[in-house]
């Protein structure tokens, strides 16, 4: 055993390969930021495809965008932004060691996330009923735009689908955080897991902030 470890009492939450909690917190936070950069590149590739086609077929894209439910989209945007607020409040509660408040805000964040996913399902169902799902049953009301509108909807489903998948993963992460909070693992000395989970959640929110205008607000002023 390492001579140092012999007289090192077990610091709760400190992994053995780190020297102290501060180094661990800095490392894990940096790790999450690097991971978020990879996510930016991942969604970025998709956004680039969208940008190219939107530039080539602006009228078809505007027509297709107009068929999305802007009310539901706006509500969802408000829901997600609020969930980022509750997440930030959760981090704050964790920093102050307020366990019950932390759990409350985590649950609120998850609830808002669930509302988002629920509304998204309703929108997907709407698209299915309107025959806007790409594939054999696709039918667009303005036939001169049909071919390129199908590209819009393909991108719509891939982009919002990947975003929803990330939200579901975020859900899983929050469940873990909730469990740790309940168990007392999170204290005023050791709360970096909540901070890092918060970073991830905020990122998923930011992706939506980009998705919403790109998909829902095209050519709105003209119609």
């Amino acid at each position, binding site marked *: 055993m390492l001579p140092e470890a012999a007289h090192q009492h077990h610091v709760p939450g400190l992994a053995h390969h780190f020297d102290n909690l501060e180094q661990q917190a800095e490392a894990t936070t940096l790790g999450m930021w690097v991971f978020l950069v990879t996510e930016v590149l991942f969604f970025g590739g998709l956004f680039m495809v969208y940008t190219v086609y939107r530039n080539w077929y602006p009228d078809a894209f505007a027509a297709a965008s107009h068929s999305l439910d802007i009310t539901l989209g706006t509500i969802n945007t408000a829901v997600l932004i609020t969930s980022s607020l509750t997440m930030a409040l959760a981090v704050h509660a964790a920093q102050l060691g307020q366990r019950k408040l932390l759990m409350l805000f985590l649950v609120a964040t998850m609830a808002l996330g669930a509302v988002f996913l629920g509304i998204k399902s309703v929108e997907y169902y709407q698209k299915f009923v309107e025959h806007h799902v790409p594939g054999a049953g696709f039918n667009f009301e303005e036939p001169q735009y049909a*071919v390129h509108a199908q590209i819009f909807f393909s991108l719509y489903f891939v982009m919002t689908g990947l975003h929803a998948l990330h939200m579901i993963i975020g859900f899983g992460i929050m469940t873990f955080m909730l469990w740790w909070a309940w168990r007392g693992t999170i204290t005023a000395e050791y709360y970096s897991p909540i901070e890092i989970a918060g970073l991830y959640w905020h990122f998923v929110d930011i992706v939506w902030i980009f998705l919403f205008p790109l998909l829902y607000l095209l050519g709105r002023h003209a119609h």
Partner: protein
Amino acid sequence: MPSSTVLIPPRHYLNDGYGIKSWLLTRDHKRIALLYLASVTFFFFVGGAMAVLIRLDLATPAGDLVTDETYNKLFTMHGVMMVFFFLIPAIPSVLGNFLVPIMIGAKDLAFPKLNLFSWYIFVIGGLFTLYALVTGGVDTGWTFYTPFSTVSSTTNVIPTALGIFITGFSSILTGLNFIVTIHRMRAPGMTWFRMPLFLWSTYATSLINVLGTPVIAITVLLVAAERVFHFGFFDPRLGGDPVLFQHMFWFYSHPAVYIMVLPAMGVISELVAAGCRKPVFGYPFVAFASLAIAVLGFLVWGHHMFVAGESVYSAMIFSILSFLVAIPSAVKVFNWTATMYKGAVSWDTAMLYAYGFIGLFTIGGLTGLFLAAIGLDVHVTDTYFIVAHFHYIMVGGTIMGYLGGLHYWWPKISGRLYNEALAKLSAGIIFIGFNLTFFPQFVVGYLGMPRRYHAYPPDFQVLNVLSSAGASILGVGYLLPMFYLMWSLRYGRLAGSNPWGSVGLEWTTTSPPPTENFTETPVVTWEAYDYRAPVEGHVA
């Protein structure tokens, strides 16, 4: 600097826990490195078997060994296996995983569990791709050009695409682990400019891994989605653009070639310093050259598309940037060569691989200049000239660097020395076999033999036969190390902590190292490659 007189410590990472569970659930970066060693070696030989069949078929002009369909699947799988499952992971995941914590004086990487998880992801992705292989194969070429891959091919495109998608996360997470480790876990006194150059290369490689791999991830995902749902992003009949795929694919795949070669360059820096027992000439220039290659490497993807229909002006911009990215590589070659001046030059196996790398990488890199010149690229692109160019870099470069590093650090990893005469013989066989295989391909490429051709005009046969003969020699050269390295594990002489008399933190700990790497956290007060003091502990 301190060196242990104990030849082999009683307790080290290899005997710290026995049984398959202690390996499959390990968090020790050194054991994970060996898990990767086993996996990448396996995939290397799968890809190598494909190469043997390809060269066998190409010994005759008519495609008479296998059918057209089989041949197309062979070169596709050869490329997929070699690129994604060997060249990209090998040096970072085997040598990098083993050495990064030790070289900076840490106990492990920043995220050991994530490291193990990365290995599992790698293996699962590999299994997906193997599944695709054994249930019929895939015939799109490793480049998956659309619309052939999305609309026309009738083979296992989707499992292969998913296998690559999954394995990509292994690269991303490993890169993330290295970046955080190098930033946050250096030992006291280990400043950035005291780090061995292998760490600078690993860091630059990790930047590319982290920034580039997500783009190939979304690209293969879109290809798979298009095959399943018929979306039309890349299908002109549905309003899509097949060339858009090429932009997305090469945006990653060009930096990917730097993922493949930068780690090897890092190994060479270590080998040259140790082999000459002096600092690498121009250390800061070599360090910054690694970063420059990583950055510039992201700006040149369009040089794969000079004849694909991109505009004249795009082509010119990509051409000039491609020339710029060659400069830092040239700087490195000159610095390594200058390091040998007034060195105490060793002729050990590892050094032979380093010399081989420098020479062959120079040739491969110079032929890259041929390709950056657009007017010339028009004639040679999509021919065997390109095949020869990238094999000079990937095989003459990366694989020689990998083998050199494996030999150099083998005593540290295993505690044993291998048979030096056999090792030198293998290095020589590999060098000769390699050149015989790939040099004729430059000639037949300029003559006009296109790549991915199953059958070819009879007047190209002589050059193809030379190439196939070389391949058989090369194959023998690759098999030999398997045997003598395995043999050394049991019967090799004990190495001691510093058999080569090198300077570096890894040589201050035992061979094999203890699980925690060091008995005391090192405090670094010396510059990298400080050979001024007489070298202790060297076993001649």
